[in-house]
């Protein structure tokens, strides 16, 4: 290859066809985007929780199912679950170095985040439409 000496790619990387996927900053960027969204959403989420303290079951359900509260809760859940999935993946990549263990941990993290996210969204929608 003509530019072999100037290339930063390793021979093994070249053999495996590992190259830039043009998505190197996506993880870091989405971390920032979700964190910005979560500043107002967290404040509103805490306000909603305060309004639920000591509420009887009927009024607590009515509050959670009202349009404004449900929309804030859905946004908080979606941004929060995305944010925590990204954060936990960083922790996994920092501390788990074995290829198989790391891959499984990242998959389990995705599964946990997806299940928690969908369960919360399903519950909020059920409270909204029942």
């Amino acid at each position, binding site marked *: 290859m003509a530019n072999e000496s100037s290339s930063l790619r390793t021979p093994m990387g070249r053999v495996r066809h590992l190259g830039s996927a043009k998505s190197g900053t996506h993880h870091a960027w989405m971390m*920032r985007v979700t*964190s*910005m969204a*979560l*500043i107002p959403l*967290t404040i509103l989420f*805490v306000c909603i*929780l*305060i*309004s639920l*303290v*000591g509420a009887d*079951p009927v009024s*607590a*359900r009515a509050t*959670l199912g009202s349009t404004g509260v449900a929309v804030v*809760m859905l946004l908080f*859940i979606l941004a*929060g*679950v995305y944010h*925590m999935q990204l*954060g*936990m993946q960083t*922790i996994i990549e920092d501390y788990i170095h074995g290829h198989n263990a790391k891959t499984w941990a990242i998959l389990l993290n995705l599964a946990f985040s997806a299940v*928690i996210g969908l*369960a*919360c969204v*399903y*519950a*909020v929608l*059920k*409270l909204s439409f*029942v």
Partner: protein
Amino acid sequence: MAEVNQNPASLAQRRPLSPHLQIYRPMLTMMMSITHRITGAALYVGTLLLAWYLIAAAGDAKSFAAAQSFFGSWFGRIILFGYTLALFIHLLGGVRHAIWDSGRGFDAKSREFLAQATLIGGVALTVVVWIFAYIAR
């Protein structure tokens, strides 16, 4: 480069060392950096509480009553207090990172201030929220 021709003994002496956490004297900026990761991991687990609460609310009366009585118990309140503390310290830690992302606050004085503000602000916001919660009750 001439450096390559060193004998092995002196290379071993001169090789760069990477001291890990236990080598450094604990400092507030470093403790708050670690705290940001620990609170983040705690909030990750804490989503189980939110999921339980919402699913119980969407479920039958018995399951919601069980969730409400847990969160109202002294043990549940300690857990929720810890969740609130982790939430606000992580929130302010995120604001601190956003300030750094904007290219500001890197000098020693600002770093120390931001670390203190994250800790003190997080505790203060938690106490304020719990005062409001008790008034609301």
